[in-house]
């Protein structure tokens, strides 16, 4: 337990510190979302219609921005070797590092998302659904991302390859998440969408931990 907290604290601390990924992800998210009113035009009806998709795609890209550093920095400086032979089994290690990634990149986005939704003229009735979809859906982004990050660790130009691996796998998350927000905008029940989203996240957690651990084991060999 002490090992878990130590690793979580270190990873989150490094992300928040200067040069870490948290501020980068937040700034990227804010900038991308605010670009849309300029591009689409300030009409409230149009903006509100695209708002769920825009917020979600921006959140997805912002969370992907720091994925390539997830295992890479530890791999480069030799920490990954020591983490792998430490007291935690590899899948648990992946779980802790992925939770740290979520805490340091997705959690801050949750705070910023409602503020940015205002600039997109999202209806007030859709805010609870937007937040719920982000809470339930963003862990899936981190866990699916962990598979890609582990696969591309140690490769050159890993960032581009990583996005090619990960983006198609993000599609189900995007569909159910924006579906939930759209349902709320139009006065329908959001529960079915959120339940499917929750299912996607649960599968991502289980598959992500084991698949990323297997990929890391290959890189350590």
């Amino acid at each position, binding site marked *: 337990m*002490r*090992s878990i*907290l*130590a*690793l979580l604290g*270190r990873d989150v601390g*490094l992300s928040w*510190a*200067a*040069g870490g990924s948290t501020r980068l992800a937040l700034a990227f998210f804010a900038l991308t979302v605010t670009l849309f009113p300029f591009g689409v035009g300030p009409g409230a009806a149009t903006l509100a219609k695209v708002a769920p998709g825009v917020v979600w795609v921006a959140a997805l890209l912002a969370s992907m921005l720091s994925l390539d550093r997830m295992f890479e*920095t530890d791999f*480069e*400086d*030799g*920490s990954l*070797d*020591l*983490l*792998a*032979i*430490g*007291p935690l089994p590899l899948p648990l290690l992946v779980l802790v590092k992925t939770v740290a990634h979520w805490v340091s990149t997705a959690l801050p986005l949750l705070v910023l998302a409602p503020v940015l939704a205002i600039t997109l003229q999202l209806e007030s009735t859709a805010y609870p659904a937007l937040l719920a979809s982000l809470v339930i859906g963003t862990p899936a982004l981190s866990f699916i991302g962990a598979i890609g990050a582990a696969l591309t660790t140690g490769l050159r130009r890993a960032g581009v390859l990583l996005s090619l691996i990960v983006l198609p796998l993000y599609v189900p998350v995007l569909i159910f998440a924006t579906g939930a927000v759209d349902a709320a905008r139009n006065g329908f029940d959001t529960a079915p969408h959120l339940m499917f989203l929750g299912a996607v996240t649960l599968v991502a957690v289980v598959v992500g931990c084991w698949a990323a651990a297997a990929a890391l084991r290959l890189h*350590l*060999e």
Partner: protein
Amino acid sequence: MGPNPTVQTQDGFEARSLACRRAGRLVFEGLDFSLAPGQLLVLTGANGSGKSSLLRLAAGLLSPAGGALLRAGVDLAKDRDSHLADLHFVGHKNALKPTLSAAANLEFWARFLGDAGNVEQGLDAMGLGGLADLPAGELSAGQQRRLGLARLFLRPATLWLLDEPTVGLDQASRTRLADAMRRHLECGGMILAATHEDLGLSGGVLELERFAPRTALEEWL
């Protein structure tokens, strides 16, 4: 101590006709050694002769292509965890985070390994007491190496696996390291060290080139 152990060491560490394959190429085969408590074994050989690979095998980071490694008579393939809980691996990378202070780097590893405290002991052992608050990235290469080696003193472990421990160290630090290694051996510890330099300690020598796989031509001759 030597390539052909005749005495079965109960608490020791030994290899039996060990073979190692990296990237499809056989690096060495038929390698035997045995290390009893209080003994040092120095690995020598040209670059690429498999010194680091042997250390990574011993640390459980690689699996042998043939043969076995035994700790206290038990095959590592059967019981890896108790072996890992009782060893320190210092690879040729120092596993330091440049933005964290020297003390914070050690503190993380101490907590991750499950023993809080002893950070000062580690810093003092390698003569880094005055540099505790400096970011690790601002230390010189030799100081970073000393900080990497300071992990050895964070928690007691019987087996030390050292990959080129003296690289970048000045004379005073070499003496300090040699003293620490001598004390460790006197307390019944075991050290497996790959180096090109004289450590100033008495111990066995394992020339890895003797275990290089013979080519088809050599076989035919």
